[in-house]
């Protein structure tokens, strides 16, 4: 694991101490330790979760990357792997879980569904990508992504973590971030951030006096 990465250039370490001492910056050691001990949340949504389990098992074994401690509780996890189709009925819970995760936290959208709706995008209860609600750090294509692809996603995330700096990370800023408002299940999924827009469009539709958006059921 890279001492080379850890060592800051410009400091000579005597040869006899080279594998025991490292001189580095706070940022580097902070990121180095974080990226090698990501704890994913034990959280499976659909088919992709099965491949995630496969990745955890012996052949692919993601404990090699320091992440075998899957936590069932969001309070103890710092990585959410959204592994599967996000439905409208499930998204309030996902947002809630995300809000409960302490910072620093990361999100991986695993598979076509989590990234953008995938094969089920046209469905009436499918959220076309989890990034409509929570920020995503790494997207992994595939349906399902192979374990290799998932591992590649992890490594990409590690690279991202490596580049962060204590000075600019959001969780050490003066004002803490706001939790994401929880979507509400109405006649359809309602994002509290979009209430005005919904009201506006629905009002316009009513004025036109015709059927609601794009062919609605005539019943009920």
């Amino acid at each position, binding site marked *: 694991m890279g001492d080379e990465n850890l060592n800051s250039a410009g400091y000579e370490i005597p040869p006899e101490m080279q594998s025991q001492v490292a001189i580095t910056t706070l940022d580097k050691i902070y990121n180095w330790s974080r990226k090698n001990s990501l704890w994913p949340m034990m959280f499976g949504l*659909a088919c992709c979760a099965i491949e995630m*389990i496969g990745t955890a098992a012996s052949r692919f074994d993601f404990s090699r990357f320091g992440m075998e401690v899957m936590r069932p509780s969001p309070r103890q996890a710092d990585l959410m792997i959204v592994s599967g189709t996000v439905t409208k009925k499930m998204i309030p819970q996902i947002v809630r879980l995300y809000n409960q995760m302490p910072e620093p936290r990361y999100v991986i959208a695993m598979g076509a569904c989590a990234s953008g709706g995938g094969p089920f995008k046209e*469905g*009436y209860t499918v959220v076309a990508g989890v990034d409509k609600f929570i920020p995503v750090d790494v997207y992994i294509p595939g349906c399902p992504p192979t374990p290799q692809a998932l591992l590649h996603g992890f490594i990409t995330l590690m690279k991202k973590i490596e580049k962060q700096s204590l000075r600019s990370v959001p969780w050490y800023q003066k004002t803490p971030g706001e939790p994401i408002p929880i979507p509400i299940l109405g006649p359809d999924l309602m994002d509290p951030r979009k209430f005005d*827009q919904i009201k506006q469009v629905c009002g316009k539709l*009513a004025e036109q006096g015709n059927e609601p*958006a794009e062919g609605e059921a005539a019943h009920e």
Partner: protein
Amino acid sequence: MNEQVEVQSSSLSDRFPEIVLPDTRTGYSGFLVKPENLIAVVRTLREEMGYDYLSSVTGVDYLPENKMEVVYHFYRTTGGGALVLKTQVERENPVVPSLTPLFPGAEFQEREAWDLLGIRFADHPDLRRILTWEGFHGHPLRKDWKEPFFEEEAKPFKSRWPEGHVYRAEDKNPFHDNVQFPAGFDPELWSPETDELLYAGLKRVDKTGDFLTEQVVVNLGPQHPSTHGVFRMVVVLDGETVVDLKPIMGYLHRNHEKIGERNTFLQNMPFTDRLDYVCSMSNNFGYALAVEKLMGIHPPERAEYIRVMMAELTRYLNHIFSIGFLLNDLGAFFTPMLYALEERELILDVFEAVSGSRMMCNYFRFGGVARDIPDEVMQKIRKLVLDRLPRKLDEMDYFITHNEIVRGRCEGVGVLTAERAIALSASGPVLRASGVPYDVRRADPYSIYERFEFNIPVRYNGDIYDRYLLRLDEMRQSLRILQQVLRDIPEGPIMSGKPQYQVRVPAGEAYGRVEGPKGELGFYVVSNGKPNPWRYHVRAPTFINLTSLAEMCRGQKIADVVTVLGSIDIVLGEVDR
């Protein structure tokens, strides 16, 4: 089969002249009955004619005829073909009597028909929405209901094919998202459904004893490490004992059937992979059978053998996986699972070699399979089947079966009796572990299963332990079939006719069912001669097996709920579709 239908028809029409009429539409079979006579006819069917198993209940929206039809498939647990009963009502405000008093197994299926098609079932004990949520706008499987990202009635969409101008569905929707609201709707005035009502209905105060004890309502899921995905149970507890339990699903409802009715017949094949995503090959099998029945074609010999081979490998894979999960649920976290997953990887290698994908195989075609099996892969399968898999099975058996803790926690827990299992329409290992020797491969043989020698394992205690043992037995039988397949598989073509993208399916209906690893997997397909199915319904075994969950859990400890659920072996992709 035809003979049988005639026998049925004569006796049914003898009993009910003028009331039960044969369905004479071309390509259709079964009988039509008026809703007001339904209960009487079904009672006779069950009590006098031996049709004691209600397999599937579903609705079809015949928009052009302005009719809503409810279709029932009955079987005898002693074997034989289906008796199909249909009842038609007006599309506006359709009401049909509920069959739950006679067949409690209809409960979830009727709720689903209400949710998706808006058919009301009179006297249903708990007619709430099941896959969508209370308050959802409309009944999505009605033919005149359109989803927010609606583009055209049927695929291939003109925008995509043959010219190929793609646009983002978001750009056309007024909300720029996958949502739609009624005109004049104001989100601020909406009061969302809360769970209070559900809880209030469940909670009881026990005043019988000296103490005033209150029961507690506990929610397990949808995010819970032991619910095998996004499944939720509301459990009422008296101390640690389960008083009542309500399963709540729909958290993975991906609109399989609505999308399936827009797709062409072949386009549905990859979607079936995603039903029970652990056993994609068996799902392919069921769907291919249903459509082949409609088309009246049969795959060539070699393809039949390949199909059986894939189905049985899948059964092994599924059972070893589910045993691993069961041990997870018992608290032996992940170690047994690692053993199971090791074998799974080897079988997945085979699947990947023949189909190109590990999990989502999309391997079956109408009239055959997509690709032939190369010799090297055949060698690999041979090695697995003849050597490794039996060995590993014995190893599992050796480590787990006589384990003190496993026996202590599984024996006598989560019991389901044979009568209740039949009444609740349970199928697969759950049914057979309760002492009912019913396996579609024997009871109503399909493909070439008649040729093989194998037993249908049965266990009689109906508890978790028996379900576990039964899975072991079934894996042994699967290996036995596989050995015969490997011995007999002929050379030859793997497709009848030319492979086509667009198959011609004559008008009519068909119900194809296979014994999937989790139970009876059925596909009800209605075609009206167009390139897309008019109705495409999946009888998902685990969805219906869940009906018996509450029964198995009542009186058990809360910790056992998790194991009982594990022993049913559910996959949410199939439960919620």
